[in-house]
């Protein structure tokens, strides 16, 4: 029996050491990516190409989900607020929830599953088919040539996608509340504008999306680069990207929210 306990403790220790090692390895990789980003900006065509794959191809899912999330918020908000006779505040509710929380978080979650997984799968497959090794043998650094442009494209497109998500969401809320239900058009917008502060709500929301963009793409490129070069390895890495980055988004969101919105209105 004591032997089994020792084995159990050893297992815990092994896991902890393993994950710390991996965290260190990932941080080193992240640092290398930043250090070798020069080429991404000198030859911006490389980033533009990746912007197409991460940004443009994520547009449809972002816009459609944003519209529906906004419409649901409009419905639910109206449903709740009209009990207090405050249905004209539905615009405030939709806008604040979108700009502060749902826009950054839901857009980042969608981005992780649409673009993050694609980045991981692409880099993982390049590794599995020796393309990264071939590049290395051609005296071209794969981190500079493959990883960094994808990383920066993700970081750039994330705030744009989240902003579009929020705007489309507000429009969805407007559709439901004003066009469908008949809340007053003027008070919908004016109450919203009264309550949503540029620096406090919008800038903080944009900061959140930037942080999420860095986190999601850093995880995605690392998992792809670190994937074991087999079919199972790549599919496992893709799954890990979605799971890890979703958890990272939600965890970071809590931390950021508690720092940004602490003790204020």
């Amino acid at each position, binding site marked *: 029996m004591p032997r089994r306990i020792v084995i159990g403790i050893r297992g815990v220790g092994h896991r902890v050491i393993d994950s710390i090692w991996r965290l260190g390895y990932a941080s080193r990789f992240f640092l290398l990516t930043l250090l070798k980003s020069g080429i991404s900006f000198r030859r911006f065509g490389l980033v533009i190409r990746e912007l*197409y794959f991460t940004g*443009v191809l994520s547009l449809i899912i972002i816009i459609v989900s944003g519209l529906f999330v906004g419409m649901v918020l409009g419905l639910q908000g109206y449903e709740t607020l009209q009990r207090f006779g405050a249905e004209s505040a539905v615009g405030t509710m939709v806008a604040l929830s979108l700009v502060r929380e749902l826009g950054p978080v839901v857009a980042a979650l969608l981005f992780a599953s649409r673009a993050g997984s694609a980045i991981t799968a692409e880099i993982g497959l390049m590794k599995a088919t020796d393309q990264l090794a071939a590049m290395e043998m051609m005296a071209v650094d794969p981190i500079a040539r493959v990883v960094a442009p994808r990383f920066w494209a993700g970081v750039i497109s994330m*705030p744009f*996608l989240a902003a579009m998500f929020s705007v489309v969401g507000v429009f969805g809320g407007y559709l439901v509340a004003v066009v469908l239900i008949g809340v007053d058009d003027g008070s919908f917008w004016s109450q919203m504008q009264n309550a949503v502060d*540029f620096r406090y709500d*919008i800038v903080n929301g944009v900061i959140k999306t930037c942080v999420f963009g860095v986190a999601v793409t850093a995880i995605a490129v690392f998992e792809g680069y670190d994937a074991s070069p087999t079919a199972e390895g790549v599919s496992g890495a893709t799954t890990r990207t979605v799971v890890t980055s979703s958890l990272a988004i939600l965890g970071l969101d809590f931390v950021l929210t508690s720092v940004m919105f602490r003790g*204020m*209105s």
Partner: protein
Amino acid sequence: MQRTTMDLWVGVFVMAGIGALLILALKVGNLGTYSAAESYTLIGNFENIGGLKVRAPVKSAGVVVGRITDIRFNTETYDAAVTMNIDNRYQFPRDTFASILTSGLLGEQYIGLAAGGDETVLKNGDKIMKTNSAMVLEEMIGRFLFDKASENKASEDSDSDDDGKK
């Protein structure tokens, strides 16, 4: 995928993204309504600010003329020093009255400015001399009960028999 089509799409994407950020700032947020204009600062000391928050509006005659930027406790006078940014377009006389009001029964609190008749206007950094504290519900109820009690007393004085029995 042709390189030029890709460039086009990315261009559209980036422009739409910047457009969305602008819409957020101007149409959804209040960037268009206040920080575009220059503003000046006024300070008011209140005995009790109740539930007043930073960023709450400053209104005059119901129109938003500025926002509260800072609230701190003054250890010398033991009251609250409230700093507010007022739009440069709006000037107020020196004897303006600032009171903390509530929109609706349970709505948010704001500062209402009631202009006086003085010739000179308030400058940047000036202090508003005449202030009126927030209504605190407990105090109101307390005062109400006190008033009621003294009313009762007055009526009881005329009917002293009852009083004596108690």
